[in-house]
């Protein structure tokens, strides 16, 4: 079926909010908990993962017709591992100071479940451009949620904000947030918050879309709706 423009870009937008890797699909939780001891680490990890994810999604979607079903996992893993090793080597040689900071994370990317999950569920079934878009969307969503988690854990755990120590937090800081136990807890609570905010938002949008559609099908209801709107506008002094 012909993919119109909206379809190709849809994975990009849905990847960030609708099926955000960390909070909605609950994938890539190993690095999420291990790395988000500081917001900057979360950011670096997210960006590194996004890059490798986009490249591996692209290659896997190109090879999708060639790789037989039975050996698909080892093949995908080979592609992913090759990419992350290449990124590590190139960075070690040409960007030594960045490598000093991010070296540890690049090695962690290979074991990140997101890459294989997206390869298996999306890019092995779709053509090149949507897969790249999906990689980008999921990657950016992952970066956003990782930085968010890092921010919270760093603020409460180490009393600093993106590395700069925050004065009043110094005697309040609880290192439990940096430890694994705190990691799980913050991840759980943030997920509740996320579902609360995004869930309500989506319900409103869904209801609004249905409402707009229904006004078309049922003239009488549409009139009642307009009367309702006018009454409410009259009640609140009506904006311009």
């Amino acid at each position, binding site marked *: 079926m012909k993919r119109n423009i909206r379809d190709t870009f849809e994975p990009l937008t849905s990847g960030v909010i609708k099926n955000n890797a960390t909070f909605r699909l609950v994938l890539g939780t190993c690095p999420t908990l291990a790395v988000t001891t500081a917001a900057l680490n979360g950011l670096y990890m997210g960006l590194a993962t996004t890059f490798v994810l986009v490249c591996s999604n692209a290659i896997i979607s190109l090879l999708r017709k060639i790789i037989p079903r039975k050996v698909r996992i080892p093949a995908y893993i080979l592609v992913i591992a090759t990419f992350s090793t290449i990124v590590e080597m190139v960075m070690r040689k040409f960007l030594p100071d960045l490598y000093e900071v991010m070296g540890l994370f690049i090695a962690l990317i290979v074991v990140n479940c997101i890459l294989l999950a997206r390869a298996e569920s999306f890019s092995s079934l779709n053509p090149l451009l949507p897969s790249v878009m999906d990689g980008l969307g999921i990657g950016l969503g992952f970066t956003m949620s990782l930085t968010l988690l890092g921010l919270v854990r760093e603020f409460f755990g180490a009393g600093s904000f993106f590395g700069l120590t925050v004065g009043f937090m110094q005697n309040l800081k609880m290192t439990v947030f940096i430890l694994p136990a705190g990691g799980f807890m913050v991840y759980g609570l943030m997920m509740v918050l996320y579902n609360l905010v995004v869930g309500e938002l989506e319900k409103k949008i869904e209801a609004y879309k249905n409402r707009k559609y*229904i006004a078309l099908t049922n003239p009488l*209801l549409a009139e*009642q709706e307009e009367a309702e709107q006018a009454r409410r506008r009259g009640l609140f002094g009506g904006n311009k």
Partner: protein
Amino acid sequence: MLEIILPVVILTGIAIVFAILIAVCSVKFAVKTDEKIEEIEMLLSGANCGACGYAGCADFAKALVEGKAEISSCNATSKDNKMKIMGIIGGGEVGEETIVVCACCGGNSCQDKYDYQGYGDCASVELLAGGRKACYLGCIGMSRCVNLCPSHAIDIVKGVAIINQKKCTQCGVCILQCPKKIMKRIPATAKYYIACSSLEKGKDVRAVCKRGCIGCGLCAKNCPSEAIVIKNNLPVIDYSKCTNCGLCASKCPAKCILEVKKD
């Protein structure tokens, strides 16, 4: 040169050894899955809605191949896919395409018998003297169908359920779950439907609900192709004769013959 050949030999060697192992094992321990099942599963809609009475499309596909199920019991799959499936299992009839509509447009314009303050949705209200609505067959509007619809196609507007045909996959979960049984199937080609299912006389209906059908029979008289027949105070459209002219909807004083829009 050696640093290039050595890693290549080692890694490719590992890959070949394991690939042979996997190939041998997958042949020796092949589980005899009938590939017809996979083929059919691909063709089915994959909505896994369960309206066909099976746990999901996979179970339904297995039942189809074993001849225990009929393809017509699945409404979510498109017509041409059904034809292909019939080609594979050779047999069974397709059953005509249908869409689902809510046969009530009362909602807030229908009075309540009592004010329900408790938990739950329509099913729990239904236990209390047949629901809070004065009209016995009126939509209670506590959004049981909204919560259970797998594709979020239903919305409660003004106290009555409205189905968004663009999103609806006709899986039939709402038909099963609605305690009042007022969700009904009409042929996909139909454009008009009677949005009321009350069998009371006009006087009683109007006393309780401003939008209900009073059984005046105007629609039956004005229908050019005599497709509408009044049975115990409620018009029934015979869709084989109906030409979708829309005259009945315009003539209806209570405006409860609504048009189906699929844009």
